[in-house]
């Protein structure tokens, strides 16, 4: 699942390597190479922009899953202050696939809850790649209710391949945990803003996604099923790039697709070369969006907020009559 290098980024790596070598050479021989480097760096920005402008849906999936992207933990550091983590569902155990706690956004207290898949293998395993057990969703709900109690808004970050499928998860009611979150989020009397920062995988993503504003980062994806799962079920081939591309295209999972389908409210732009190319700039865009949206939502009375949130989800769907 970890993506060390992405094939389509090879020209970017190559140019980055050239620039590094030139800088190294200049350092060793005390040469001034500013004039040589400037055009190369300009070219690098152009190359990143070009490549990222024409990503295929499957390439977007790769970008969304990249372990170099900013993760929930990064946004907590970059967009918020005064974070204090809260653990456990008070029923069974702590689930590190979802993290959350109090933090400040622009000085004001908020409750931040997000899938956290971990940057390296050790963290991936500890956090189960962001695939939560029922405990994770129940912890998330506990924190949301806590936020509601103190009239504090909820900010969620979505970044998961899906909810965990396993014996313990089934025994402890994975379905019930997800369903309960959908139900309670649709009536939580405090503003909720959800942002898909990487992969928004199915019910496990939606369990943090019933919100007044739903955002997607430019290169994130949001889908009812993984492209591999879809291709395997429909075309008996979940592995070949052709079939995965076919599924990624057919499922309409990119941010512009979801905006067109009226499932999300806003796309947060990423810097040239994707969020992983520049964490700070990405986080600044996210922060700006959250502050602005929260300012709008804070003006609404709780009952009106809930009514509008419900109406928004009740409108989703397309059929003939």
């Amino acid at each position, binding site marked *: 699942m970890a993506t060390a290098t992405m094939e389509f980024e090879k020209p970017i790596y190559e140019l980055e390597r050239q620039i590094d070598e030139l800088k190294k050479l200049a350092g060793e021989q005390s040469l001034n190479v500013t004039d040589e480097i400037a055009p190369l760096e300009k070219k690098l920005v152009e190359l990143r922009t070009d490549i990222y402008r024409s990503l295929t849906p499957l390439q977007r999936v790769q970008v969304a899953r990249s372990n170099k992207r900013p993760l929930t933990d990064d946004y907590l550091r970059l967009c918020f202050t005064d974070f204090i983590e809260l653990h456990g569902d008070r029923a069974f155990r702590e689930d590190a696939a979802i993290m959350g706690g109090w933090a400040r956004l622009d000085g004001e207290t908020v409750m931040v809850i997000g899938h956290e898949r971990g940057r390296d293998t050790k963290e991936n395993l500890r956090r189960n790649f962001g695939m939560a057990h029922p405990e994770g969703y129940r912890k998330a709900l506990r924190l949301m209710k806590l936020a509601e109690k103190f009239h504090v808004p909820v900010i969620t970050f979505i970044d998961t391949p899906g*909810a965990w*499928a*396993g*014996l313990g*998860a*089934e*025994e*402890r*009611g*994975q*379905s*019930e945990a*997800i*369903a*309960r979150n*959908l*139900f*309670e989020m*649709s*009536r939580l009397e405090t503003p909720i803003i959800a942002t898909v920062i990487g992969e928004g995988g*199915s*019910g496990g993503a*939606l369990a943090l*996604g*019933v919100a007044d504003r739903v955002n997607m980062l430019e290169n994130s994806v*949001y*889908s*009812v*099923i993984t492209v591999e799962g*879809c291709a395997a*079920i*429909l075309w008996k081939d979940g592995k070949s790039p052709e079939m995965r591309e*076919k599924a990624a295209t*057919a*499922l*309409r*999972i990119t941010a512009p*697709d*979801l905006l067109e*389908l009226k*499932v999300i409210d806003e796309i947060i732009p990423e810097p040239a070369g994707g969020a992983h190319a520049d964490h700070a700039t990405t986080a600044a865009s996210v922060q700006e969006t959250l502050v602005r949206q929260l300012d709008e939502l804070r003006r609404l009375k709780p009952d009106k907020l809930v009514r509008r*949130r*419900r109406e928004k*989800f*009740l409108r*989703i*769907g*397309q*059929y*003939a*009559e």
Partner: protein
Amino acid sequence: MAWFRKEKKPRQPRRERLEIPADVWEKCEACGHTDIREKFVRNFNVCPNCDYHRRIRASDYCGILLDDGTMEELELDIRSIDPLSFPEYPARLKKATANAGEGDALLAAAGMMESLPVNLGVMDFAFMGGSMGSVVGEKIGRLGQRSLERKHPLIVICASGGARMQEGVLSLMQMAKVSAVLAQLAERRIPYIAVLTNPTTGGVSASYAMLGDAILAEPGAVIGFAGPRVIKQTLGQDLPDGFQTAEFLLDHGMVDQVVHRRDLKHTLSQLLRHMSGKPSATGWTAS
């Protein structure tokens, strides 16, 4: 001792058996028991030998659950479209409609249940595996709306492999949509009961199936978030016996009762009467 007498009973001559036309016989998928079809049908399509609950159509459930002559089918004109231009979806819809009818994967109805007015949604596995797309979500949404307006309880019989892939994220969002409707019912104290039949998995299981004021399940039904095949793949080992059956969920505290199909109507009515402050259908009974 029944088994002893049975042993001694002479076998029916083969010749005589063959005189009954072949299509009158039914064979149980679970135990292989063969009996005349009429016996299966009279037993609610439950095997008279092993109690295996055979899959039945949405209209059959309406017949079992609603009082004679009270059923009114609703929302007949909603049809699935192909919002994503998904490969082969229009052809699949056409085939499903030819095989299973115009109602998509959910039959919406209103009627009386032991003289109590109810709104009833029944999923139809015969239509694309009972998959939930925009039409299923919208039909349950409208049934919920009707329940809100008339203060009538809502019952949904679930039978589904999950969300309808061909409608992508729109089908995922139906989970949120139906859950929002159920939250409205809950706030107005209108009872909602979910009945889980074989199978109830995926997006249906992770939304309205698990949100009932009471949750009932048919014996032996497979119920779970991930299908057994997916879990087997993830684990790389066989699953324990009875894993994800209705009985397993009862043991793990996820459903209120496992109910034989023959008792379903009365159990539902009994629950609804308790929850809506109505007297018992049969009056006071001495223990």
